């Protein structure tokens, strides 16, 4: 920076950078599309059945007998299970985001647009909710209502919703009294119409960004729940659960059973994080300019 500042230039001249995050977005979407295709087409090309145990082949190291990632305690092919497991973690993330969007955006719009009592009630509920250790709450709720892909997704969605509420509420409060919203009010639009046609679109940038970031978080949380043993039920190849069963041989040097599913988690979470970061630069022109 020091070299670029001449005596004529005012100190706040932005650095000449044009970074819109397009590359990060392309990388993120690329990873996501590859993972999606790989897992959906898995039955066509996987050499082993991800749900078929084969005890004699227990704990084969990676590369033996066509087992690219080795086999686990029950002789499951780790590669097949990692590829196949992507569909569960993706589905959980998808359900979670859908739930978080519906709950979070609705409450956020209501709180931000209505203000007054509605805002107070929603904000105070938010205070309570945010104080919770969310992972423990999710574990307790899943313990209470049973396990499964749908319930896991819904629980993660509910604990992710507060972030959306807060973001949408803040954004809505800043545009509530702007001219175009007031004009819509004068023209006799109903409250719901105004929120849907004028307030919601102004929120979309924030919402998309947070959706991608929350998806990454949902993947991590789903894995943690699976690891603790309350996520997706046992035989299904969910990554967190695979890691937890894989740890049995860990101290004996059997690393592949827990390392590969973890890498898959990192890859998918990374894809969503990259997408979220690129979208945030796209959604906020100030950040687009400065870095």
């Amino acid at each position, binding site marked *: 920076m020091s070299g670029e500042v001449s005596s004529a230039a005012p100190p706040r001249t932005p650095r000449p950078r044009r970074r819109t995050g397009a590359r990060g977005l392309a990388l993120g979407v690329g990873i996501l599309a590859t993972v999606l295709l790989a897992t959906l087409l898995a039955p066509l090309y996987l050499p082993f059945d991800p749900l078929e145990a084969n005890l004699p082949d227990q704990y084969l190291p990676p590369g033996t007998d066509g087992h690219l990632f080795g086999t686990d305690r029950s002789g499951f092919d780790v590669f097949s299970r990692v590829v196949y497991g992507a569909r569960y973690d993706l589905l959980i993330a998808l359900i979670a985001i859908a739930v978080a969007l519906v709950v979070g955006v609705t409450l956020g719009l209501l709180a931000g647009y209505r203000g007054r009592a509605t805002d107070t009630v929603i904000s105070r509920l938010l205070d309570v909710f945010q*104080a919770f250790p969310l992972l*423990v709450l999710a574990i*307790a709720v899943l*313990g*209470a209502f049973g396990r499964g892909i749908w319930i896991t997704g819904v629980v993660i969605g509910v604990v992710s919703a507060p972030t959306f509420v807060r973001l949408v509420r803040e954004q809505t409060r800043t545009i509530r009294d702007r001219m175009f919203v007031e004009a819509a009010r004068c023209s006799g639009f109903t409250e719901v119409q105004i929120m849907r046609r004028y307030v919601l679109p102004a929120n979309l940038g924030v919402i998309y960004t947070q959706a991608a970031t929350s998806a990454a978080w949902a993947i991590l949380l789903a894995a943690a729940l699976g690891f603790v043993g309350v996520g997706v039920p046992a035989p299904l190849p969910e990554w967190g659960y695979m890691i937890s069963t894989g740890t049995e041989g860990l101290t*004996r040097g059997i690393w592949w059973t827990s390392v590969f599913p*973890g890498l898959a988690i990192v890859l998918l979470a990374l894809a969503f994080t990259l997408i979220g970061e690129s979208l945030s630069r796209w959604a906020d022109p100030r950040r687009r300019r400065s870095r």
Partner: protein
Amino acid sequence: MVGYTARRVAWVVPILLGVATLTFFVSRAMPGDPAKIFAGSQATDTAIAAIRAQFGFDKPLGVQYLDYLAGLARGDLGTSVRTGHGVLDDLMGRFPATIELILAALTVALVIGVPLGVAAGASARRGAERFARGVSTLGVSIPEFWLGLLLIVVFYSSLDIAPAPVGRLDIGVLAPDGVTGLITVDALLAGDLEVLGNAAGHLLLPALALGLPAAAPIIRLSAEATASLLRSDHLFYTRAIGTPPHVVYLKHVLRNIAPIVTTMTALIFGFLVGGAVVVEEVFAWPGVGLYAIDSLHYNDYAAVQGFVLLAAAVYILLFLAVDLVNTYLDPRKRLT
């Protein structure tokens, strides 16, 4: 200011009440009967009924709830079905382990995060910024528990330079009597270097597993704060009069980003009391998180509720403290 403080402090009670209520009803919805688990598989029905009566599980739910709240008001968190001790005693006995772990993790996060963030924010070159961004992007995408397993594989199973990932000390090594309950600090105070080394060895891997991902937000925050600070008139002038770079960074930059980084660190601390749970599980670290997970498996209502309340209280109080300090330092915030 006094009125504002009083209002904010007054809010803590209803929020904690909300947390307590929600936890109470969620934990009662869990299937399984804690009295049966406590009594063991050989117990007779009368024995189970006696235990149920002893813990008050035979009363109507509403009465149990009121009893629980009345207990809370007296500072009584109930009795753990699993350990047979008071939940408050259980939690207080284990809390130092969790605090030690979190403090160590935050140290890791700050030692890595602040220099990297400042360097990235200050550098005109793209490489540094991209590196810092890459590190923090990766940091938020790694599950802590898996990172912990990875560290165990590398440093325990393969290289054999870390102690077995079980607990805070080797078996046979006694924790020093100390006031803090943080074994490393107590050993240092007692001058017992052997115990200190042992405890630090056990602490290192879990602290890395928790601290490396926690460095991500600190890198990002300090990079952004540094970049915008360097564009300010204040720093422009400081540099223009020829202040040497080490003074610019050590005195002006660090001092100016300190409040925001401190705020972030406090919030991460509050978050980690609940967030350290899975890492405690991986390393069999005897903190409150491991206690909560074990209690969940036993449907130990009171213990789980106690942990949630503790985590929530720490989070709320830290948030409150940060908010009040910031408001005190920056009067503009008092208006909102």
